[in-house]
């Protein structure tokens, strides 16, 4: 309940921003705020993996891309030519396909967005399990390189697969009707609605993770971060908790990818790029590693500034510089630089959320 109340100020700010932009006639800011919210959804998931479980991942753009690309390809690629195949007939019989007309008036048969999204999330989770089992046995440099390698493989695969549009990516992705009347789409008329959908998802995700981190699982994860051997001795099943967290953060990334792809109406290979993964890690680091609120706020702020083009051609350089400066001077996050919180260790900073 306390955490539910803590969410209220955020809700207030979200509504305030919407009202302000509408009042000032600058509603176009809401588009970037929507995108920033989706990126932040990935970032809070990564925050749990990095800050609480202490496992670095330099491949989370890969999971984002798995979600986005699968959903985009399934809802965009026309199944009409192979409609007699058993698989397509089977899907059609199950009501998982929807037909329509493309821009030239030809018949179009694609996968229903909900089915595509569920499939994409399941695939991301499955890949996370398959990758996670061997990768999470590694530590330090080895874990960083292995996840980086995974990210690069995904990038190379989407870049080399015609079904995923190669270097062009996939465009013309249809809107995603979450519930009747709630549609994820990018045109100006749906701007306010989409802003609230994205922020609703982000706040719901944050609430979910905050609760999780203050449950048995959260305590186990923090024990693992403190000392794996000690946690092991206390009877914590280290590998299972690490894997669960890895899969959870991959699912968050995939959901973010799916929703953002439908919102943007397309996805390109740069979303799977190494720089994206590094950027997510940078934002989690700035937010203070084991600090979900910090990660969310920094995620929204930095992504918004980046999407508005504030950093110009120095975009990547700014994130590189942020990474170095934070790690050199404030390895526990930018919030620890505030005089009030100076002596807080990251673990204590995390438990602060409970009182907040």
């Amino acid at each position, binding site marked *: 309940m306390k955490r539910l109340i803590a969410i209220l100020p955020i809700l207030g700010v979200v509504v305030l921003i919407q009202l302000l932009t509408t009042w000032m006639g600058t509603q176009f800011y809401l588009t970037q705020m929507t995108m920033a919210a989706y990126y932040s959804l990935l970032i809070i998931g990564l925050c749990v993996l990095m800050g609480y479980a*202490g496992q*670095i991942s*330099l491949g989370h753009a890969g999971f984002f891309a798995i979600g986005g690309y699968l959903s985009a390809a399934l809802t965009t690629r026309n199944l009409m030519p192979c409609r007699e195949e058993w698989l397509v007939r089977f899907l059609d019989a199950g009501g998982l396909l929807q037909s329509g007309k493309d821009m030239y008036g030809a018949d179009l048969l694609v996968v229903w967005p909900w089915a595509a999204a569920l499939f994409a999330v399941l695939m991301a989770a499955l890949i996370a399990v398959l990758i996670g089992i*061997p*990768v999470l*046995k*590694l*530590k*330090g*440099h*080895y874990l*960083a*390189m*292995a996840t*980086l*390698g*995974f990210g*690069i*493989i995904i990038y*190379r*695969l989407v*870049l*080399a697969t015609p079904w995923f549009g190669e270097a062009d990516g996939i465009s013309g992705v249809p809107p995603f009707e979450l519930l009747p009347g709630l549609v994820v789409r990018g045109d100006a008329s749906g701007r306010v609605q989409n802003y609230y959908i994205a922020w609703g998802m982000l706040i719901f995700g944050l609430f979910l993770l905050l609760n999780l981190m203050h449950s048995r699982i959260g305590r186990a994860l923090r024990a693992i971060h403190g000392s794996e051997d000690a946690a092991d001795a206390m009877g914590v099943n280290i590998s299972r908790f690490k894997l669960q967290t890895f899969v959870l953060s991959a699912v968050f990334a995939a959901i973010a990818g799916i929703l953002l792809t439908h919102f943007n109406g397309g996805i390109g290979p740069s979303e799977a790029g*190494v*720089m994206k993964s*590094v950027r997510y*890690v*940078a934002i989690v*680091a700035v937010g203070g590693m084991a600090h979900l609120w910090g990660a969310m706020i920094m995620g929204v702020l930095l992504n918004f500034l980046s999407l508005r083009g504030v950093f110009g*051609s*120095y975009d*990547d*350089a700014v*994130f*590189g*510089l*942020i*990474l*170095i400066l934070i*790690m*050199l001077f404030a*390895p526990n996050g930018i919030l620890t630089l505030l005089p009030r919180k100076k002596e807080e260790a990251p673990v204590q900073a995390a438990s602060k959320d409970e009182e907040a």
Partner: protein
Amino acid sequence: MTTELFVQYLFAGITYGSIYAIVAIGFNIIYNTTGIINFAQGEFVMLGGMVSVSLLPYMPLPLAIGLAVLITMVVGALIEIVFIRWLASPSVLRMIIITIGISILTREAAVHIWGDNIRSLPYFAGNEISTIGVLGARISPQVLWVVGVCGVMVCTLHLFFKTTSVGREMRACAANRTAAILCGINPRNMVTFSFVLSAGMGALAGCVMSPITYTQYDIGTGLAIKGFTVAILGGLGNSGGAVAAGLLLGIIEAFSVSVVPLAFKDAISIAILLLILFVRPHGLFGSGEAARLKAF
């Protein structure tokens, strides 16, 4: 596959393999003295190539290369002094993130200085079309330059660590830091020196490979991944293993082109990296006993 084609692939593999080996040895030198994997290792190779191409209009080729190597060494020293030297026992996660940040900054600086054009040095001997016949295959003389320079570098490095006093001091730091301090060695200077050394090696490799593989601002990350693969494959910290593993990976990559599309070439070597990490994290030539002492 005909003999000519086989030899052709083999030499392509050896060329790339020796570059990977040099990058891997650069990783090893820094890892041995600090326990850090320097994710910015590939950027040294890029810098070497870029600086030498920029210097070439003003001076003869050997001088341009020498100066480029020197400048990159200074950059390496500066990176260590500014970002790493004053940190008191940083965690591995922190070091990983810092060196990644350095790699991004170097790359971004390069794109703003040199732009995103592809550049290259001229061939050291002959030109693009001059070839030497080997067993019916035609190879460029530059291939011999690459292999030769890399070979000389590895031998010189071996002698340096075996015979010179600085080399011995560096090995002492790698073996036991506390004992080295007791013997009057300043380990901080050795760390700076290891950055200088691996920057210089990377830069020289970047110069000799430039005519064949070209130099662009973003080649660093790819080389770093390959170099790391090789370093792991050969056993982290083991330079002899790095040479063997480098040649092995280069040759596998070269022959993989005949089986799978070119676009998947990188994916293959990374898949090898993942496989090795999962099955034998101490490398093909590393000893499992010693590996248990390292932080996997």
